[in-house]
C-alpha cells in the first residue's frame, strides 16, 4: 500500500471507493443527528427494535410481490414493506408505553422479539414458497457496505436532506419533547404527533441504511456518536452537530480503511472507529468526561476543606472575644483546630499547606501553631459570614431547628454563588434589620466538633 493510495481513498479520488465512503458519511451524519434525539429521550435502543421490526415487512412485501406476478425482488417495494412494519413497530412501542404500566425498555424488547419472530417465521415460509426465488432475500435487504450502488447514494442523500431540514425546522419542538414532555403537552404542543414524526424520521434513516450497510452498523450509528457527543457539551444544538460530525467521520475513516486493507469488513470497522471516538470522549470530554469530573470533584473537595479550615480558625478566635475590628489574631495550636471537626491529621495538614500556599496562614514549627494572615482573616470572615447567612436563611425560611442547622448549612454553603449571597443578604436585611451583616452572630452555640 502506497502513501498515495491512502491519500487517494481518503480524499475520495478513487472512483471505486468514493461511493461507499460518501454513502457511509451521509448515513453516519443522518444517524448521528437522529441518535442525539433518541439518546435524550432514553430510547437509544429504538434503532435495534426498528431494524428487527422491518423483517416481517420485507417478507410480506416479497410475498405480495410474488402473488402479483413478479419476482418479488423489487427494491422500492421491499423497502416500502420494511417501512410499514417499522412504523407499526414504533407505533406499538408508543402504544404499549402510553397505555400500560410497561416501561420503554420492555416495550421495545417486546416489539423487537415479537416482530422479529414473525419475520423469521415468514422468512422460512417465503424461502419454501413453491414458485418464489427467495434465496438471498435476507442479505438482499440486510446488505453489506462494500456493495453499494448509485441508487443507494440517491436514497441516502434524499433521506439525509429530509432529516436535516425537518430537524432544523422543528428544532424547538423536538428540543422541548426531549427535555420536558409534560411541559410540552401542557403548552398545547401536539406531543404524540411530534413523537410519531421523530420516530418516522428514525425509521426512514434505518430503512434506508439497513440495505446499504447492515443491521449492526445502523444500531451503532444511532447510539454511539450521540453518546460520544454528549460528553463534550450541554447544549443540544452543539451536541447534535457534533454527533453528526462524529458519525460522518466514523463512516469516512472506517470505510476508507476497509478499502485500503483487504479482509476488513467496512461495517465492523466503522462501528469500531465510532466506539473509539466514544471511549476517547468518555475520558477527555470537556463537559461530562470522566477526567473532567474527577478534577472537578477534587477541586470541590479542596475548596470545601479550605472553607472548613478558615471557619474553624475564625470561630476559635471569635470565642476569645471580638475587638473593635473583629477577631484578634493569635497563634492557634494545631490540636485545637483538629478538634473542631472530624478530620484526620493528614487531611488537616493538606488543607493547611494549601492555605499556606495561598498566603492565608502562617505556621510555626511545622504546623504546630497556626496564625491567620491579614488576607486570611478577611477570607475567614467571608466564609463564616456566608455560612451564618445561610444558617439564618434556613432557620427563617426552611424551618430548620437551630440545633441542627449547622449540618444542613454545611451541605449547601460551599456552592453558594455571589448572586445567592446577595439575595440572602437582602432577604435577611428586611427580616432582621437590627442584625449586623458584617459577620452575623452564630444562631446556635458553637461547640467543638460542630
Amino acid at each position, binding site marked *: 500500500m502506497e502513501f498515495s493510495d491512502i491519500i487517494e481513498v481518503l480524499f475520495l479520488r478513487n472512483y471505486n471507493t468514493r461511493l461507499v465512503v460518501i454513502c457511509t458519511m451521509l448515513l453516519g451524519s443522518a444517524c448521528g443527528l437522529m441518535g442525539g434525539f433518541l*439518546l435524550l429521550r*432514553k*430510547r*437509544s*435502543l429504538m*434503532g*435495534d427494535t426498528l431494524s428487527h421490526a422491518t423483517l416481517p415487512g420485507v417478507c410480506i412485501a416479497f410475498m405480495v410481490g410474488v402473488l402479483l406476478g413478479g419476482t418479488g425482488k423489487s427494491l422500492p417495494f421491499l423497502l416500502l414493506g420494511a417501512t410499514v412494519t417499522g412504523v407499526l413497530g414504533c407505533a406499538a412501542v408508543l402504544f*404499549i408505553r402510553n*397505555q*400500560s*404500566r*410497561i*416501561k420503554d*425498555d*420492555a416495550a*421495545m*424488547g*417486546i416489539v*423487537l*422479539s*415479537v416482530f*422479529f*419472530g*414473525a*419475520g*423469521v*417465521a*415468514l*422468512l*422460512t*415460509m417465503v424461502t*419454501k*414458497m*413453491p414458485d418464489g426465488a427467495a434465496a438471498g432475500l*435476507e442479505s438482499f435487504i440486510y446488505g453489506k457496505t462494500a456493495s453499494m450502488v448509485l441508487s443507494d447514494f440517491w436514497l441516502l442523500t434524499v433521506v439525509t436532506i429530509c432529516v436535516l431540514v425537518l430537524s432544523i425546522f422543528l428544532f424547538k419542538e423536538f428540543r422541548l419533547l426531549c427535555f420536558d414532555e409534560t411541559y410540552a403537552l401542557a403548552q398545547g404542543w401536539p406531543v404524540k404527533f411530534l413523537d410519531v414524526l421523530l420516530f418516522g424520521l428514525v425509521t426512514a434513516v434505518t430503512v434506508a441504511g439497513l440495505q446499504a450497510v447492515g443491521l*449492526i*452498523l445502523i*444500531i*451503532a450509528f*444511532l*447510539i*454511539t456518536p*450521540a*453518546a460520544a457527543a*454528549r*460528553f463534550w457539551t450541554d447544549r443540544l444544538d452543539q451536541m447534535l452537530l457534533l454527533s453528526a460530525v462524529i458519525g460522518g467521520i466514523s463512516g469516512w475513516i472506517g470505510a476508507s480503511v476497509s478499502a485500503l486493507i483487504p*479482509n*476488513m*469488513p467496512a*461495517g*465492523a*470497522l466503522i*462501528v*469500531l472507529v465510532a*466506539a473509539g471516538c*466514544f471511549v476517547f470522549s*468518555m475520558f477527555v470530554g470537556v463537559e*461530562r468526561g*470522566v477526567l473532567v*469530573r474527577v478534577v472537578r470533584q477534587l477541586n470541590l473537595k479542596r475548596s470545601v476543606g479550605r472553607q472548613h479550615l478558615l471557619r474553624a480558625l475564625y470561630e476559635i478566635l471569635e470565642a476569645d472575644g471580638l475587638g473593635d475590628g473583629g477577631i484578634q489574631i493569635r497563634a492557634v495550636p494545631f490540636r485545637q483546630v483538629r478538634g473542631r471537626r472530624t478530620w484526620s491529621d493528614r487531611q488537616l495538614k493538606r488543607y493547611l499547606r494549601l492555605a499556606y500556599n495561598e498566603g492565608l496562614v502562617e505556621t510555626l514549627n511545622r504546623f504546630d501553631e497556626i496564625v491567620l494572615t491579614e488576607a486570611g482573616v478577611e477570607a475567614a470572615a467571608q466564609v463564616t459570614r456566608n455560612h451564618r447567612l445561610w444558617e439564618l436563611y434556613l432557620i427563617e425560611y426552611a424551618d430548620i431547628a437551630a440545633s441542627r442547622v449547622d449540618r444542613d448549612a454545611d451541605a449547601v454553603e460551599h456552592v453558594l454563588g455571589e448572586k445567592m449571597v446577595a439575595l440572602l443578604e437582602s432577604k435577611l436585611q428586611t427580616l432582621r434589620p437590627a442584625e449586623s451583616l458584617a459577620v452575623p452572630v452564630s444562631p446556635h452555640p458553637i461547640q467543638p466538633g460542630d
Partner: protein
Amino acid sequence: MEWYAIDTWIVIVGILAAVSCALLGNFLVLRKMSMMGDAISHAVLPGLAIAFLVTGARASLTMFIGAAVVGVLTAVFTQWVSRFGKVDEGASMGIVFTTLFALGLLLIVQAADHVDLDASCVLYGAIELTPLDVVWRPSIFGAILDVPRAAVVLSIVCAVNLLFVVFFFKELRITSFDSELATTMGINANWMHYLLMTLVAITTVAAFEAVGSIIVIAMLIVPAATAHLLTDRLGVMILLSVILAALAAVLGHITALFVPGWLGFDPAVVDATSTSGMMAVMAGVLFAITLFCAPRYGILIKKFGRIDRAEAK
C-alpha cells in the same frame, strides 16, 4: 398434520428454554434491563470466534465457555460505561454489544478462509433440529426414549435458574425494587446484579445454541411483561410468567404446524415455518390479549371500567 415423537421433543425443549428464560426475565424487566438478552445474543460473537481460533475446532464446550464469558463481560462493560461515563443504560448496552459484535466479525473475517462459522449461524440455532441430536436413550417400562442433547442441557439450566430464584428470592426482590435498602440491609446489590447477569448470559448462550436467539430474546421479556400486567406480587408474577412461557412454547409449535396450511402451503411440506419464530409470535399474542383484557391493568378495564364506576355512583 400428524403429531410425531419429534414434535413432542420440540415442544419439551421449547418449554424448557422458555421457562429458563422467563424465570430470569422477571428481574430483567423489573430492573429495566429487558434488552440484555438481545445485547448478549449479539455480543457473544467474539467469544465464539476466539474460542474457535484458540482450539481450532467447533467443539461445543469451548465455544460455550467463550460465549458465556463474553456474555458476562457484556453485562460488566455495560455497567461500567453507564456508571463511570454516566451514560443512559440502554445506550451503554447498545454501544457495548455493537462494538463486541463488530470485533467478533473482524476476527471471523480474518480467519474466514478456513472457518465454517458465520454471523447468521450464531443467530439462528434451530429448534426443529434438536431432536436429531440424541445423547441418552433410557428405557422406561420397555419404551425407549430418545432424549436430545438440548433437552438435557436446558433441563440443567432450567433447574439452576429455578434454584437461584427460589434460594435468592428475598435478595433478588429487594435488590430489584430498592437497591439502596438492600445495601443498608447488608445485601450486596452489586454482587446480586453480577450473579443475575452471569446466569442470564449462561442461559442466553445455552438456549440460543440449542434453539435459536429469537426464543431467548422473546422469552426473557414477553412472558415477564405479560405477568407484570396481571399481578403486583413478585412470587405470583414469576409463577405466571413461567406458565405463560410454557403456554407460548406449546402454542408456538402447534401454530407452526398449522398456520402454513391456512396460508395455502402444501401441508406435506415439512417445517414450512420456523417454530422458534412462531413461539415468539405466540408470546406476543398472549401479551396483546393481556394488554387489553387484564383484570386491573388492561386497557379495556381502564377505558370502560371507569365509566361503570362513575355510573354506579
